[in-house]
């Protein structure tokens, strides 16, 4: 849908600013009541979801033209979805996140490009990754790993490492651990190796729909050729793309995050922990695994009115509120590791505070990205935990970058590291 198709959403915004806060029911303190990193960093009301709805309407009505500030308003946002969740606590007709995305699509279509994003997309087009790296280096993480090459063989499961893990040497161990876990559990798994391409999810969030579609179709075809039925990934960004976006293009794969797989294996007794990890940890819900981790539900229908002006849909339209994301599994996995004590932060699950890396922010506004991560680490520290654990390489890298910069001592783990340590 194009920006103008969301006019109803814009006009029905009541400017209640719920989008700036976590769902009000969940406020537990003054310090951790905020939900939207963008308005907290940007200050002006335009940096909130309701502000962006206003700006979008203003643009549609021809009240404003494109300016640098408008680009900043549109792009200084991780597209984390916290606003969408808070709004949907009470509103069934609002799609704030979709408007934010649609605004970006319109900007890209109209040639209003953020220079920092242009570089990244250029590299994507050439090198099939979002990391500004050469394609040739992709797949190095799997050197020496005895795993099927899906460019030559078939397998039921594809493990998609994702751009970040593929090119961040510190994180190669995460992919290797995931593949080994799958293999040891007897799963028929393969990888695309150096021919793995970006999921397209970040490009999608940045407004480059064309690029997204290209990569999505490419991946779908490649996996179909390899006989894949199930897609597993350790990257939450990728998870969102495969689980929510690809089905809109006809993809039919079952999509699992590695942590879901691990959870299943533990439940079936196929993973047993023999070591103790005596540590107090807190878990950070990645946006794309948590509130955006609900699967796509196709819908086609119309809006109609009942009782005069009450807005309903026919047939009933599913609402993605983020309540059914992947929350239980990582927590149960952590709780099952001997010695580990899980303490929750105040902002969790569908109202988790973003790590700061998403939506093209890390690429274009690194200070903002790190500030957001710093806020999250403050919240983690406030629990008394020694470590923050997550399930997304983008989150973890952003936390590490922030930590290093600030001389922080908080340890940062991916969930699979702790699982592996405890086995």
């Amino acid at each position, binding site marked *: 849908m194009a920006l103008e198709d969301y006019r109803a959403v814009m006009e029905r915004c009541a400017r209640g*600013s719920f989008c700036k806060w976590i769902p009000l029911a969940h406020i537990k303190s003054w310090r951790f009541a905020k939900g939207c990193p963008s308005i907290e960093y940007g200050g002006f009301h335009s940096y909130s979801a*309701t502000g962006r709805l206003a700006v979008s309407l203003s643009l549609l009505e021809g009240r404003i033209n494109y300016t640098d500030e408008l680009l900043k308003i549109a792009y200084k946002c991780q597209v984390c979805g916290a606003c969408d969740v808070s709004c949907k606590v009470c509103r069934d007709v609002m799609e704030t996140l979709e408007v934010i995305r649609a605004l970006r699509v319109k900007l890209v279509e109209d040639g209003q490009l953020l220079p920092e994003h242009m570089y990244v997309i250029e590299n994507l087009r050439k090198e099939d990754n979002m990391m500004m790296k050469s394609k040739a280096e992709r797949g190095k993480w799997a050197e020496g790993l005895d795993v099927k090459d899906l460019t030559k063989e078939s397998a039921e499961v594809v493990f998609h490492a994702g751009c970040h893990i593929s090119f961040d040497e510190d994180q190669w161990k995460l992919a290797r651990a995931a593949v080994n876990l799958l293999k040891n559990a007897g799963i028929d798994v393969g990888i695309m190796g150096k021919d793995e391409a970006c999921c397209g999810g970040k490009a999608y969030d940045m407004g480059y729909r064309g690029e997204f579609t290209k990569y999505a179709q490419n991946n779908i075809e490649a996996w179909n050729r390899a006989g894949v039925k199930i897609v597993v990934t350790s990257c939450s960004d990728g998870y969102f793309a495969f689980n929510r976006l690809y089905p809109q293009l006809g993809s039919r794969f079952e999509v699992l995050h590695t942590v879901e797989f691990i959870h299943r294996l533990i439940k079936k007794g196929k993973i047993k922990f023999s070591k103790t990890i005596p540590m107090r940890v807190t878990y950070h819900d990645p946006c794309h695994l948590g509130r955006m981790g609900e699967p796509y539900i196709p819908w086609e229908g119309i809006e109609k009115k009942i009782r005069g002006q*009450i807005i*309903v849909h026919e047939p009933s339209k599913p609402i993605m509120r983020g309540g059914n994301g992947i929350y239980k599994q990582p927590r149960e996995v952590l709780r099952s590791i001997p010695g580990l004590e899980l303490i929750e932060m105040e902002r969790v699950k569908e109202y988790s505070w973003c790590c700061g890396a998403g939506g093209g922010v890390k690429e274009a506004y690194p200070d903002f990205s790190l500030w957001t991560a710093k806020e999250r680490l403050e919240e983690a520290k406030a629990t008394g935990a020694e470590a923050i654990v997550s399930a997304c390489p983008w989150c973890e890298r952003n936390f590490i970058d922030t930590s290093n910069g600030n001389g922080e001592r908080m340890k940062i783990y991916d969930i699979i590291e702790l699982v592996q340590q405890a086995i």
Partner: protein
Amino acid sequence: MTLSREVYQALEDIVGPDNISDDPATLDSYAFQWVAELSQRGSKFMPRPEAALLPGSTEEVQAIVRTCNRYKIKCKAFSTGWGPYAAPKTDGVIQLDLRRMDRILEIDEKNMFAVVEPYVIGGQLQAEAMKVGLNTHIIGAGSSCSVIAACTSFLGPGPDSIYMGHSSENLLAMEWVMPTGDILRTGSLGSGAGWFCGEGPGPSLRGIARGRRGAWGGLGVFTKCAVKLSPWPGPAVMPVEGVIPAYNSPLPENFRAYTLAFPTWESYADAYNKIYDAEIGYIAHRQFNLLGEEVWPAYIMRFIDPTKTTDDLEELLRLPEIQKLKVEGRRSFQLVLAGVTPRDIEYQKKALNEILVETGGRIVSKMAEPAMERFTLLYLIKMCFKEINMGLAGTYIGTFAQHGTPDFLVSHLRPAAEEALGRHQRKGLIADTGADSMMAAVSGIGGGGDCTFEQFCHYDPHNKESVRGALAYCADAARAARERGMHGGLEDIAREISKEELEESRRHAPQPIIYAFQRKIKEAFDPNDIGDGSYIATEEVKY
């Protein structure tokens, strides 16, 4: 009018370049407002401010106000900014967004008050207060609203007012940057004795810009205030369970959350008076009925079963249990009891039972089911679901809302409100939620005695016909209220009213002299007219 570079620079020198903007997109985000379409001929945009500023301190606010005086520029401040009254009413206004002033400066646990800056919302203060066994009054518009704005500047009843008072009743000392740029610290604060008293020395100056309505940002900027807190006999952190949006909270042993219904409006009014006299009730509010007597029983299921949405309304309305709730739930309101000790809650329950027997009232059985009670408790304690007002048709406007006694409400206000709304609902341009779509606090002030009904008109701001329908209703409601000697509700503020209509209503006001007095206050306190028309000051002085 565009700000000259000289003025812009003067303002930028105060707040810094990162905290001022004249970018049109930014400014339009400030102009965009709830129900703007009612006063702006269908547009969602109020007049665009000339600049938006983010001051970080009282000193910066003062410097800005002084600059406005020097250059004769109007200035409009807001805390969270929800409502067309937060935006400029005309061109030539700079907007002060006070979000950087967001601290809770102090919670005095023993003496039960807190000191806050403008961007502290009710939800934040409540969370911190609960940790020390206290609670804050939350204004009817919900916990996303600013504590200072409620106390100093805007209306004030809420579901908890029967126990915790009206927002202005909770105002203690305050720091006020007056329109001249002078800073007034009221009460004990001005005497250097602390924040605990807002009156004196001698006559109380907080009377200037409050009243029942508040100045709505039209007479200076309130930069800090102390607010009275109330006891909270619940847990330090209220546990919240459930999958969005079906959040709920388990009831502690010493709490109950009922919906009570009454056979007649007379017995309804009796119940109010008996509850006041019995001194029971932590929260007493007619909340869910804002969705309309015909709709609310179905709509609230969305908060009980997370798989339900507004799309399921028709199906839900057909269910026998919902039909029964519709009938049983007529003439009802919600009552939360909170006992400070086990004996206290038992006493309150006993007193309530007596009242129900005497009035023929009953506890609505469906609403007493555990899931319903848990939802009711969370809703009313935290006031965290107030966008529900917009949930049916896209938005709403509140009408009538004259305050009075329970008897006045049921016999004088209610028939007028039901007649007006019912007639317009039949035209199809506003939602047909039933002629009784009235919501309000059982008492708008501490201890009872004063209440109202706010009649909800739900309409679709995206649909021009619906907007026209809402406007027609609002004009009719305002006329109906005035014919009965009542002032209007928000419809009088939200819609565009001609100068003639305004002067007409003032001439026929019970005491036209109040407009003359306000004019004099305006002249004395805002000689350079930098405040916008939110503080009402007529052209004429004499009547």
